[in-house]
């Protein structure tokens, strides 16, 4: 069952590379949060129920419901709708995504270790590369935030790859990153004037 969810997760990453509108990015983040909830439920064998409830709350509540809601509000208030001005850069991003998938499969195979679950490792690396590609190939600050959230999902999967326990520390770290990204950008980033010649742009 877990492997179905992992493969669906990989398919959502491909659709990240080919999505056109920001609304689709937000929907994909929500779907990824839901899939991570499913993976956490089926894979983690925790005895400490407080930790389990915390992880379930984190993935289901925060990643699936609250973060997409906040991102939707940010998008609506800033009025940006499209990710790229032209459709052509998306094509190159897809090709780079395919190379990232193959590269992560090869690396996961090289790190063969009895303590590491190779499938999780491969998909976690693919998620990491996709997040990095999203940040590197886009100009808008909201796309950088989405890429950052995808990298957080990669950290989650990495911790799953190494064992089937999840220490509280990793959870708190992920939550802090999400908090910093979404809330601070949402409430302070919108004060940026468009076209201020900063390093990142709010609108295109």
């Amino acid at each position: 069952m877990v492997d179905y969810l992992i493969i669906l997760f990989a398919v959502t990453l491909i659709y990240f590379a080919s999505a056109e509108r920001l609304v689709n990015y937000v929907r994909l983040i929500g779907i990824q949060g839901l899939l991570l909830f499913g993976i956490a439920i089926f894979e983690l064998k925790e005895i400490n129920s407080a930790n389990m409830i915390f992880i379930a709350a984190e993935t289901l509540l925060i990643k699936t419901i609250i973060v997409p809601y906040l991102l939707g509000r940010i998008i609506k208030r800033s009025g940006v709708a499209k990710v790229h001005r032209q459709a052509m850069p998306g094509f190159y991003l897809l090709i780079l995504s395919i190379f990232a998938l193959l590269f992560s499969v090869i690396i996961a195979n090289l790190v063969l270790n009895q303590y590491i679950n190779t499938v999780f490792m491969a998909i976690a690396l693919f998620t990491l590369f996709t997040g990095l590609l999203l940040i590197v190939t886009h100009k808008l600050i909201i796309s950088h935030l989405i890429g950052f959230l995808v990298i957080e999902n990669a950290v989650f999967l990495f911790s799953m790859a190494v064992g089937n326990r999840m220490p509280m520390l990793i959870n708190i770290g992920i939550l802090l990153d999400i908090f910093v990204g979404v809330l601070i950008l949402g409430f302070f980033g919108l004060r940026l004037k468009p076209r201020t010649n900063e390093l990142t742009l709010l609108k295109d």
Partner: protein
Amino acid sequence: MAVIILIIITALFFPGIILRIKSIASGRKGPGVLQPMKEIAILFRKGSVFGDTSGIIFRISPAISLSAVVCAMMVLPFGNLKAVISFEGDFIFFSYILALGKFFSIIGALDTGSSFEGMGANRETFFSMLIEPAFFILLATFAMFTGHTSFSDIFAGFHISSDHFILIYSILAVYIIIQIAVVENSRVPVDDPKTHLELTMIHEVMILDNSGFDKALIHIGSYLKFAVFGTLLYNVVVPAGINTILQIALFFSIQFVFALTIGLVESFRARNKMNKNPKFILTISAVAWIAFVLILIMTNKLT
């Protein structure tokens, strides 16, 4: 032989079902299910008008594209029965004989000397170049999983193992085959067959100048191509070796569901912007690579 008869029977009803679904989804009653066949009969009765710049290629290309589809039908299996002719590597033959038919229809379109057909030929060549890898990666994953390289052997050996991964692999394969069929037959969201604006057409504008008997041949070829992809879907979904009556019933119901899907997608989805199409088609190849990674997990190469 049975598969050819079944494909012909399906092709008789397939376009009519799509038309009917589109009409019902827009609130009308719609034409009868055999209406496209009646239109082909009308085309057989008509004469032909040829452009004054077109030469011999324009006159022979519809016949070649139809015979290409008929030859492609001969390598498809049906359940337990092997194909009419099956050999190792016949899926490569399948793809390239369809590409040969497409090649001749493209140069037949270039033969008319009109700018619209040139535009349609350009777009059709480009999109079929982008969709070819998806088909071959999918079939390479089948070959890797079953160890055979012929359609008949692949689908005879496909459902025998009791791996629970097969379900999601079948779902991915069905999704990819439906997308490939949409691109190859030029349906929404790649191309709208009902558009009347020439600058937005891809396949329709290539056959704009054909009339009468040639147009009937082209339509028959496209209906048969639908049924051929439906047969591929049937072979992926249904395990070989069950009761024959049940197999035939499942065949027709899968073709019906395929026609239903295409009709519903055409009713509720707009055609892509033209410069978004290459990205859409490449996404299908990317999902095929994910199917490859899934097969690597299934054959225990990635653990």
